């Protein structure tokens, strides 16, 4: 058995630990409060000029800029949280003023240097700030950061590239979708969309990418940015791509783009016998497309054995103007209609109340 003396020692030791912990908890609080108050105290005198800078006209900014750029390091460090917070909250002249302040201070260059820091937190913070500054020269370093071994840093880099990247960043973003160190597809999609219409030609190269995820993201981006010039390729993806998720994305994109060459592939996609998820999204896309010629096929879908497809078809008909409504009413009045009539009535009732539940989403993964 365990000797009593050992137990006594353990008891005393544990009591000491309890005491130490209490002191630690209390002490931690003191330290944190003190640090916060100290930061506020140091930053207080420059807060006024900072606000002045943000609200000033272009020509008045210069003097304030130089005054703020010359504050000592301690004050700058205390002010930095406020600055980074404001960077994301202001636009227009105020944002330009902040960017100029960072540049005058050399903080933008420091941030680029921090991108190679050993601390992941520093790399991530630097990426965040560079994105908010829309600092174009940082783009190549940020592209390299897309392969960082910390996933949060990769995310921050992708977000930053969305704001300060260019066409040359697009291939890196698409490559970051797969491999040992990936960036989540949602972030890549957002970044590519944020880069704007100028880069969409580079984005379109992803339509032929061997990885299905890259193809899916490309299609989603093109659909979201409304780039109609590639509608025919997206239609081909809907018809022929081996991956179901890519086809679903293509269906949705064709609906958003609203081009006539989307009609045929979508009608083919909703035919019975195909995958349910694709048929559902395809039916919804026919509604967004707005082609009246889809009224007949959609009306036939009202009686589909899968209730989700039928419901999507009913709500799509609501978006096809008077012909769609007429088809719905005809189906609703049909005495022998069964489930088709019920779906039609449901859609009409929702519309009458004022809020049709469009866009039932099928996929979440890609």
């Amino acid at each position: 058995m365990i000797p009593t003396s050992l137990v006594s020692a353990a008891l005393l030791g544990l009591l000491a630990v309890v005491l130490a912990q209490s002191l630690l908890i209390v002490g931690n609080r003191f330290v944190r409060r003190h640090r916060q108050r100290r930061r506020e105290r140091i930053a207080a005198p420059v807060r006024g000029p900072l606000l002045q800078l943000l609200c000033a006209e272009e020509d008045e900014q210069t003097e304030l800029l130089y005054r703020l750029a010359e504050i000592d390091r301690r004050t700058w460090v205390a002010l930095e949280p406020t600055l980074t917070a404001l960077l994301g909250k202001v636009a227009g002249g105020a944002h330009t003023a902040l960017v100029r302040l960072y540049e005058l201070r050399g903080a933008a260059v420091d941030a680029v240097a921090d991108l190679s820091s050993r601390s992941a937190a520093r790399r991530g913070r630097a990426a965040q700030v560079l994105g908010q500054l829309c600092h174009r020269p940082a783009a190549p370093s940020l592209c390299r950061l897309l392969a960082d071994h910390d996933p949060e840093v990769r995310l921050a880099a992708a977000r930053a590239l969305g704001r300060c990247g260019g066409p040359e960043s697009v291939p890196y973003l698409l490559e970051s979708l797969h491999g040992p160190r990936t960036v989540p597809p949602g972030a890549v999609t957002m970044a590519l969309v944020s880069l704007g219409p100028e880069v969409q030609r580079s984005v379109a190269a992803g339509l032929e990418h061997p990885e299905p995820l890259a193809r899916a993201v490309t299609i989603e981006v093109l659909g979201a940015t409304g780039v109609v010039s590639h509608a025919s390729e997206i239609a081909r993806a809907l018809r022929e791509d081996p991956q179901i998720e890519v086809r679903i994305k293509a269906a949705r994109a064709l609906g958003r783009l609203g081009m006539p060459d989307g009609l045929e592939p979508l009608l083919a996609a909703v035919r019975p016998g195909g995958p349910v998820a694709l048929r559902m999204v395809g039916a919804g896309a026919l509604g967004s497309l707005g082609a009246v010629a889809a009224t007949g096929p959609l009306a036939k879908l009202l009686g589909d054995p899968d209730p989700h497809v039928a419901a999507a078809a009913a709500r799509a008909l609501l978006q096809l103007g008077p012909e769609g409504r007429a088809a719905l009413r005809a189906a609703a009045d049909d005495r022998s209609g069964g489930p088709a009539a019920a779906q039609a009535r449901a859609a009409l009732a929702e519309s009458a109340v004022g809020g049709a539940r469009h866009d039932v989403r099928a996929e979440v993964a890609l």
Partner: protein
Amino acid sequence: MAHVLIADDDADIRDLVAFKLTQSGHQVTVVEDGMAALRAARENTVDLALLDIRMPGMSGLDVCRELRAAAETARLPVIMITARSQEGDVEVGFAAGADDYIIKPFSPRELSSRVTAVLNRVER
């Protein structure tokens, strides 16, 4: 010129907007949450309310609805501050009775112009 009420839980935005509007010559009352905003709107002679749509506690929407429901504040002009690309926010804001909205991130100068525009509209 006018007495503007600012309600936002974000200290930076509060200070910034207060500074700009004071610079533009308005008198400013600043509060941190919805309940305080309601109280301030009822007790003082406020000419315009700038409300953040999302605040912990009573949101800007709740405040706007309450203001519209009471007789003495029913005509009070309200500008909602909403977040970028939350379209639903804009619709819901107008449905709650807002007169205009401004999207974050915003330019302080643009905000000031909107405030002036809404005040002028009301005067007419």
